[in-house]
């Protein structure tokens, strides 16, 4: 059994529902989605107009889901989607879209283009048009425990370091605790300080937590590649682990698509609601702040700005929480233009960051984010997604920019009032 055109088209057919039909019906090809897209804005190449990236799906819908399209198809007025078409669209669907969701918010007729890209990727991947890096990551994660391969040794080592740094024990597989923490591979590999930060904050707030050996990885390449089957398998692992530990909730870490995968897609993938809640770390910190369980002392005096990760804010609904936390710890917090719901993507989301082929385009697209940062010219950029963090680190370096990138959890922990 291999990827074929027919499987791809079938996957597209499976994805077409009332919203998709309504969106394609409503499109008046005004092209305003292009103005919202960082890839179009920086290249001014009309092929990057978001709705154009969906054209194959539109053709399937038109030919097979509308009366007139069906008649046109019978009469041979329209051509079916071919494998060559899919090949031609591969780079448009995977390289020039981070699924950042800006187009979804500007479309005057209200088309959720991002949701349709997500659906279109189902057909692309099933027909064998997924980027190799994402396929590799999927294989590694399915076969092992992380998109980066086997990270079980790494996590144990990082936890050990954190326990030493914070002086607080972190237990694996402890049943009955409040939360099970999952981490993005990026955090485990690059930003492990978040572990000690969480340990200190949770200790102060009397929140108990654990890490599961069976499911500590939060990322879900199935979402980016566009494969519900793979995404389901990965979500199921987390759900099984959490439910066997009997935790009250799972903390979704500073990772954009992981939140999207577990919090919003997950129940729909496995076909049922969970027996636990999923909460984003920043949501939880803000809750603790509101309950008076999180108190800080002192403030960072540098000029700080905040980068909203698309999947957590624009497509995840966590907007005010990080700002309240920022104001707790930042003396000089400045917002960039378009900050918040309409923030510009770092350019690495939606699997684009992992896609080598997309690197040159990604660097061009980053100029949008760069312009946004340049205007404010902060000393450091705070964010709440490890992958944004990772992308920003890389491209800032590429563009010889001086700014430091910080994780919000670590920043909050830095000013934790140990005496309160």
């Amino acid at each position, binding site marked *: 059994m291999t990827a074929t055109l027919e499987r791809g088209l079938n996957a597209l057919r499976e994805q077409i529902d009332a919203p998709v039909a309504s969106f394609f019906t409503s499109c008046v090809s005004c092209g*305003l989605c292009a103005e919202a897209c960082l890839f179009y804005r920086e290249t001014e190449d009309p092929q990057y*107009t978001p709705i154009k990236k969906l054209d194959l799906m539109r053709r399937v819908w038109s030919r097979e889901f509308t009366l007139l399209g069906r008649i046109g198809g019978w009469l041979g007025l329209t051509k079916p989607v071919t494998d060559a078409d899919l090949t031609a669209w591969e780079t448009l669907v995977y390289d020039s879209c981070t699924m950042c969701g800006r187009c979804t918010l*500007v479309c005057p007729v209200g088309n959720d283009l991002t949701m349709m890209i997500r659906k279109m990727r189902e057909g692309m991947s099933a027909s064998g048009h997924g980027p190799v890096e994402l396929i590799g990551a999927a294989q590694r994660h399915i076969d092992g425990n992380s998109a980066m391969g086997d990270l079980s040794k790494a996590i144990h080592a990082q936890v050990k370091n954190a326990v030493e740094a914070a002086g607080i024990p972190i237990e694996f597989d402890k049943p009955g605790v409040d939360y099970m923490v999952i981490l993005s591979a990026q955090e485990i590999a690059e930003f492990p300080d978040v572990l000690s930060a969480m340990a200190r904050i949770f200790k102060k707030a009397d929140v108990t937590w654990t890490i599961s050996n069976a499911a500590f990885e939060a990322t879900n390449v199935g979402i980016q590649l566009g494969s519900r089957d793979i995404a389901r398998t990965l979500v199921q692992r987390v759900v099984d682990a959490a439910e066997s530990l009997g935790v009250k909730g799972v903390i979704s870490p500073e990772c954009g698509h992981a939140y999207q995968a577990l919090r919003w897609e997950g129940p729909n993938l496995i076909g049922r609601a969970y027996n636990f809640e999923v909460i984003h770390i920043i949501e939880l910190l803000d809750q603790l702040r509101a309950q008076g369980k999180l108190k800080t002392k002192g403030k960072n005096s540098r000029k700080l700005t905040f980068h909203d990760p698309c999947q957590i804010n624009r497509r995840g609904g966590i907007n005010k929480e990080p700002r309240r936390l920022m104001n707790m710890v930042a003396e000089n917090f400045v917002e960039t233009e378009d900050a918040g719901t309409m923030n510009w993507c770092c350019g690495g989301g939606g699997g684009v960051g992992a896609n080598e082929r997309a690197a040159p385009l990604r660097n061009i697209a980053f100029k949008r984010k760069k312009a946004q940062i340049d205007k404010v010219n902060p000393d450091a950029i705070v964010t709440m997604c490890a992958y944004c963090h990772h992308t920003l680190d890389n491209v800032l370096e590429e563009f010889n920019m001086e700014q430091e990138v910080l994780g919000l959890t670590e920043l909050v922990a830095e000013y934790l009032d140990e005496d309160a």
Partner: protein
Amino acid sequence: MNNPAFDLLMWARGPGFDIALVIFVGGIVLRLFEISILGRKRDLAPAKGNGFLQGLKTIFSRSVPREGLVKFAPVTYIGGYVFHIGFFVAFFFFAPHIALIDDAFGISWPAAGRVIIESVTALTVLALLALTYSRFTDPVRKSLTTFDDYLVLLLSALPLITGYVAVNKLFGDPTMMLAVHLLTVEALMIAFPFTKLMHAVSFVLSRYYNGSIQGRKGAES
């Protein structure tokens, strides 16, 4: 002796309108059924916000452009607003049109004066010209434009132009121009359900879906 213009007018007011109406109404219902029966799966993720209310809100709120975007596509935005508002005013506030609505639904409201209707109509046609021009020149618009788009632009412009000509007796026999005006409207009605004109109805669904998807997540829309 027959007056061909009068006969055409009577055809346009009689069988012509009936045919157009059946295709228009039947077509819209057909398309809406075609869309909505497809359905969507119930979202099993616990909601953070009220998707239903935000969906309703988005139907209206999406009429306002996002801050700062107008300057990137001024022709599309301004032309689009002028056209939509202009078409709305010219259609809903010109007395003969109100008379039609009154006859069909038994509701009516005060009509606008000739100066308003005619200047609005002229502006609306200008907006259409600007939008058409941008479809020829702007790279994004150009790459997206299909035959359907030009057809829709033409079909939207014709009733405005013929209506203006008929009311002002710019040329042709006024009865004939009135008939031609009705026929262009009927062409618009017939094309409506099967072209991009359908957005004028389906936008409600799309905006609702968009708003409800975002709203459930507690995200803005």
